[in-house]
């Protein structure tokens, strides 16, 4: 029984990562109506940028972090130009497949270019962690929760309290109408790609000290983030966050109390149940059928 608090803490941490990646995912669905199967690769790439900047070039941690995130944003735009823009007027399945291709391309380019060895990356804080009652708080797990919470609040503030945030929302809700009002929609969509990639990259940098940096983390994170998104409600921002947390907690508890090897199955079983019982997801927004 005394395991429970610890497991919950761990579940929330893992869930926060899924949520963070999922958040980038949702934004792309909403703004560009694309389902990006290369979202996990964003995280992988972010972690590698960090390895190059911090571990290889020996820059200061904060500066490396900043540069890695900026590089990811630039990369996001590049990604959009190659695998989204030429296909934007086509069947969404075409874009899905193109992002799958981009994922394969990224994984293997990194493998070829930076070598296959898993890399070690230190966390935000150099300390190990500490005990709070029955719970051991790993400093990196803690920073994941804190950064996720801060980013989610920040994003909420930007989206709900600033004009640019509202323009982004408008673009994602009705792109043509946004253009009619004079909102530069193409620019905003590119901006969202940049932000989404930066967010994914940051998630990768945060998880790297725990999982180590290897090409394998793309798949580990990407699919779960996608599942989180569907459980929460396709294209719903609160849904992405809660979906991520739910998966993180359920798989940790499931692993502890039911079966460790089937850990990854729990997320997908919930997913199927949610889809069958409540296809719009837990937080799916219902906008009336006819305006």
């Amino acid at each position, binding site marked *: 029984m005394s395991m429970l608090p610890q497991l919950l803490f761990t579940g929330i941490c893992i869930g926060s990562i899924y949520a963070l990646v999922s958040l980038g995912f949702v934004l792309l669905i909403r703004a560009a109506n694309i389902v990006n199967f290369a979202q996990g690769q964003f995280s992988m790439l972010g972690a590698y940028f960090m390895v190059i900047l911090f571990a290889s070039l020996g820059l200061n941690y904060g500066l490396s972090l900043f540069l890695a995130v900026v590089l990811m944003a630039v990369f996001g735009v590049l990604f959009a130009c190659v695998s989204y823009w030429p296909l934007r007027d086509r069947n969404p399945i075409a874009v899905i497949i193109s992002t799958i291709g981009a994922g394969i391309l990224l994984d293997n380019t990194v493998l070829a270019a930076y070598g296959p060895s898993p890399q070690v990356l230190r966390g935000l804080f150099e300390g190990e962690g500490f005990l709070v009652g029955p719970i051991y708080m790993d400093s990196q797990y803690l920073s994941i929760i804190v950064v996720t919470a801060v980013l989610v609040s920040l994003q909420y503030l930007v989206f709900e309290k600033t004009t640019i945030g509202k323009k982004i929302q408008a673009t994602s809700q009705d792109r043509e*109408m946004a253009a009619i009002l*004079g909102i530069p929609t193409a620019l905003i969509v590119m901006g969202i790609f940049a932000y989404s990639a930066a967010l994914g990259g940051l998630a990768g940098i945060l998880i790297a000290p725990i999982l180590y940096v290897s090409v394998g983390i793309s798949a580990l994170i990407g699919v779960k983030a996608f599942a989180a998104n569907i459980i929460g409600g396709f294209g719903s921002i609160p849904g992405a966050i809660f979906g991520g947390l739910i998966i993180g907690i359920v798989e940790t508890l499931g692993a502890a109390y039911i079966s460790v090897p089937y850990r990854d199955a729990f997320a997908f079983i919930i997913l199927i149940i949610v889809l069958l019982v409540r296809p719009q997801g837990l937080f799916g927004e219902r906008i009336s059928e006819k305006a």
Partner: protein
Amino acid sequence: MKLLEIKGLTARYNAGEVLKGLDLCVEEGEIVALLGSNGAGKSTTLRAISGLMANVSGEIVFNGAPILGLKTAAIARLEIAYVPEGRRLFPGLSVRDNILLGSSNRRGAPATQLKKEVDAMFDFFPDLKALEHAYAWTLSGGQMQMVAVARGLMAKPKLLLLDEPSLGLGPKIVQQVFKIIAEIRQRGTTVLLVEQNASVALAVADRAYVLDAGVLLVSGTPNELWGNKQVRAAYLGGLAASA
């Protein structure tokens, strides 16, 4: 002075030609109505002006400069506001935010100034004041239309394009909307109005064009058009016209 001049406008969708060489002009300060039955090409005309049509040819001159071929957002920045058919509010944003976003074409306008203007909109549309923070999708059709018009006005447009503002609205609300349209002109905004409901449109318009199957059928002042058999036939067919 001619604010908008259209010459030989031809537009087609994949399916076929919708406009076949339309000519019209709008003088500054006027309300001009475009009338005609469904499929006559009225909405297409407005979409072409706003840069939303891919296959168009001819000339559209606004304020002395050709605008055909400009991007939609660029046209918005020339101070042409388009309130499309079906309102097209952003369903997940509040009424206030929807109205505020109407000013997106005015780059550099200070936020405090815009806030004041939105407040002024609520004075102009007092019915909306109570709904300020409601999501747009929760509104009734009439309320949505008010928000859409308010959003259009936030662009400080020289030319306001209104597409079927009466669509789906009850007679009383239609009267209310058209009263507002008349007031808008009082404030110096030029209006090009597409409307199926001929009588309400003619009641506020200075001039009107009647389209039929993509060509101009007849144009004139409301008094010239009212009771015109061609107009009646365009809407209700020969039987009604002969009655």
